[in-house]
């Protein structure tokens, strides 16, 4: 009789064989993809919402745009300054008369015969509804300001006490239907309007939305649908666009989104039948799946790049400039109330006065003290460039010949000696600079400025404090920041999206930092309202020069990006505005596996 242990072993062996049998074994170099019509993307960001009027994060936007929802016009591949029609049949220009001479009216002839994923035909009324919904839904911290600003001249539908400050009539007048056209009526000329619409004019069907409990498009009901919570909208996890893919599943528990091809798409159907987007937190697992060919594109952080370099049948394309900038900000009007970061609050060597950074010599001294090359080497592994102001590479008006600060201890010392009427050098200072917890590159930037400034004079003391992100934002909003690191990424590829928040006195950062320069205000306004690209470029060059002279912040770095994919993936192109899913954005329509 066979002993029990041997019988158990035999059963285990048979089971093991049965389990192992389906194993694919090692895939040889050059082998074809196992699922040639399915693109598998592994990333580490979860979508927040699939509602195009709610989502304002790249992990969400990257899922639905441009795959599920389409815009009226869009960028011409990688070229951000050129547009091609999408749900409109023409790109409005002054030349074709679809932009009025005063720059206040944009007319979009709407494409006929386009169907939503539920089979219904898209109408100009749906386009209008979608634009009004985008503006009037206006959730806290959402994207609605992008249309509210050019169309209504406001950045919110509510005041600080949550009272409505727009009326339905105002909104309705700003977007009208004329036959097969949808016409936008701007509050004032806004040169970036087309580039905003190229990324933020998603269209969904009015009847479908209303049938699922969303706003019905009526004047007397919109307030009820204003500022929703995430879960309040059916569109949060249901989609109905016109794009080449439709949503099959969004499974937040399994961290997976599956898109399937829209076979009735108005252009030729996509080559891929399916796109699977999975969140895999662990880099090693992502890398192994890429190596095995079970994943086609994966997210890789810069420090891990070496681990995918040289993998067989894996392509790493590097050096794409992002439209984002890292900045060290000077707060020129620090709120001293219960603020531990300014020490004594006086220029006595034990603190700083609240207006410490209002002296341009102090700001210039810090700008000269910062070691840009070290920051780029340590913070970005050398994969970044030093910008010369808020108008970064890739934007209209960027000019690499304009001056920028370099690490120069002699100039830094000279500026410090001039600061505060010569008192600063003798008195010294002591304050705390801040950054948000967990941001490694900002931590490196903070350490560099601390080390370099302290090395200039033993009476100069800087402490570093990291603060949880939301608290950090609140403190800077309450003018409690001193010198702090915070960045900006483009919503649309126009210099206005950088000039306004960095240099206009009502912009995000100037408001926080007490920066105001009437020359900058005038130039930002002119830049926004001028339609001639050459004239605009001149204006933004002037603003870059002005930022160099005023030094409202230290423009530390503009990172470059890379993408990692199997060599069998074709048709990908880089577009700096497409929301990054796995390092960069992806237009699934043009992609295939061969």
């Amino acid at each position, binding site marked *: 009789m066979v002993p029990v242990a041997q019988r158990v072993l035999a059963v285990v062996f048979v089971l093991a064989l*049965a*389990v*192992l*049998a*389906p*194993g694919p*074994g*090692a*895939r040889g170099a050059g082998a074809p993809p196992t*699922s040639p019509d*399915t693109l*598998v993307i592994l990333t580490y960001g*979860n*979508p*927040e*919402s699939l509602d195009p009027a709610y989502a*304002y*994060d790249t992990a969400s936007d990257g899922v639905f745009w441009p795959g599920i929802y389409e815009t009226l016009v869009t960028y011409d591949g990688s070229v951000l300054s050129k547009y091609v029609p999408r749900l409109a049949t023409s790109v409005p220009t002054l030349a074709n008369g679809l932009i009025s001479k005063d720059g206040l009216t944009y007319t979009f002839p709407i494409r006929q015969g386009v169907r939503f994923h539920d089979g219904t035909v898209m109408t100009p009324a749906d386009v209008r509804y979608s634009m009004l919904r985008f503006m009037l839904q206006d959730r*806290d*911290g959402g994207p609605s300001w992008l249309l509210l600003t050019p169309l209504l001249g406001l950045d919110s539908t*509510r005041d*600080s006490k*949550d009272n409505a400050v727009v009326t339905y009539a105002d909104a309705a007048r700003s977007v009208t239907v004329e036959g097969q056209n949808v016409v936008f009526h701007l509050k004032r000329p806004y040169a970036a309007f087309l580039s905003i619409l190229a990324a933020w004019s998603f269209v969904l069907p009015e009847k479908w939305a209303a049938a699922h409990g969303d706003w019905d498009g009526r004047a007397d009901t919109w307030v009820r649908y204003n*500022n929703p*919570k*995430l*879960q309040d909208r059916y569109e*949060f*996890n249901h989609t109905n666009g016109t794009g080449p893919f439709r949503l*099959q599943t969004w499974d*937040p*528990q*399994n*961290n997976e989104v*599956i898109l399937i091809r829209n076979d009735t798409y108005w252009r030729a159907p996509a080559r891929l039948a*399916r796109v*699977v987007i*999975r969140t*895999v*937190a*662990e880099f*090693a*697992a992502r890398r*192994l*799946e890429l*190596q*095995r060919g*079970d994943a086609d594109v994966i997210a890789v952080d810069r420090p891990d790049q070496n681990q995918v370099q040289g993998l067989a049948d894996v392509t790493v394309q590097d050096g794409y400039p992002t439209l984002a900038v890292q900045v060290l900000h000077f707060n020129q009007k620090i709120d001293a109330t219960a603020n531990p970061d300014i020490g004594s609050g006086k220029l006595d060597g034990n603190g700083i006065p609240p207006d410490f950074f209002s002296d341009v010599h102090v700001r210039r001294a810090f700008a000269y003290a910062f070691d840009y090359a070290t920051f780029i080497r340590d913070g970005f592994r050398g994969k970044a460039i030093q910008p010369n102001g808020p108008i970064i590479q890739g934007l209209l008006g960027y000019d690499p010949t304009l001056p920028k600060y370099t690490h120069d201890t002699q100039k830094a010392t000279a500026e410090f000696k001039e600061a505060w009427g010569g008192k600063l050098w003798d008195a010294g200072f002591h304050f705390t600079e801040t950054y948000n917890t967990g941001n490694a590159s900002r931590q490196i930037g903070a350490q560099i400025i601390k080390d370099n400034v302290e090395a200039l004079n033993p009476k100069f003391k800087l402490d570093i404090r990291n603060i*949880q992100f*939301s*608290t950090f*934002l*609140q403190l*800077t*909003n309450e003018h409690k920041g001193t010198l702090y690191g*915070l960045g*900006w990424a483009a*919503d649309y590829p126009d210099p206005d999206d950088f000039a306004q928040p960095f240099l206009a006195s009502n912009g*995000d950062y100037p408001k*926080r930092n007490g920066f105001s320069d009437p020359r900058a205000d005038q130039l930002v306004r002119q830049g926004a309202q001028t339609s001639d690209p050459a004239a605009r470029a001149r204006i933004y060059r002037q603003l870059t020069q002005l930022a160099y002279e005023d030094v409202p912040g230290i423009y530390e770095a503009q990172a470059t990006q890379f993408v990692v994919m199997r060599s069998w993936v074709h048709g990908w192109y880089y577009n700096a505005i497409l929301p990054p899913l796995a390092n960069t954005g992806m237009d699934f329509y043009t992609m295939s596996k061969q």
Partner: protein
Amino acid sequence: MSAFIVRRLVLLPVVAVGVTLLIFTLLQLLTPAMRASLYITDPKQLNALPEIIRKYRLDQPIYVQYGEWLRQVAHGDLGWSETAREPVAAAIRGYFPATFELAVGAFACILVVGIWLGTLSAMRKDQVIDHLSRLFSISGASLPTFVWGLLLLMIFYGHFGWFPPGRLGLDADLFVRSAAFHPYTGLMTVDAALNGRWWVFWDAVRHLVLPVATLTFFLTAVLVRITRSSMLETLGTDYVRTARAKGLPEAVVVDKHARRNALIPVITLASLLFVGLLSGVVITETVFNWPGIGRWGVAASQQLDIPAVTGFALIFAGMLVLANLCADVLYAVVDPRIRLQ
């Protein structure tokens, strides 16, 4: 016995209220702005912070927030989890089966290997098998799970391609999402078997192998050592000597007389191990991309997702009470001398 069980079950709501109240109190030590971090992801949302605090009532006193939460719970609503992007109850229902499947698989292996190896070590005290067992236990417990996990993953997936990470392969994953597959329990192996889809079953088993092996290797150590010492103590007792003197076969002496009585501390430990596994094995779940409750719990804690953390704690407290109850019942089963009064 039944009175004892009822008494223990009555304790459940008391523990639940205590735990949730403790969490609410601890969270009040954080400022409303910190708790608003859940809704803030970008500097562009800066100006919205005060509105967000107002909208989600983060500036309300603790008794208001807790009272509201209790009212919701009374209506069967555990609140909305921003990290899960769904109601807390749905999130628990969704995440728990994956963890349960992993926990049961790992627990079974841990029990079998732990008790078998512990017994063997005790019977072969200071012999080669005992030393090997010690080596196995120490090496398993001394290296972190993520090291074992990654090593196993690199060898058995990266090199051989046998056992992939995740819960299912692409084909099986697409199939279980189709109308042809009915999800009965959320347990992939069970559902596949109930649907009669054996290729899905084997695919699910393939995905279970490495996380189960990792957990088994890591967690068996304590059980082996406890079983060994308990067995050594029992093997030296008078009744075991008597059994041997009666001429009973060694297998009977060990199985029926010694091991059964040595199981009391093992049961205590095993119940705690099982609860630990059920509450989530975060690192293993992360390394193997296993969509379990542990990863969600950690993400919710990191992002101060109060409804999720509270709901998670509530469920965990319940599991702990039930596990202790099971352990108490099992004491009586394995050792009739124990009377539950």
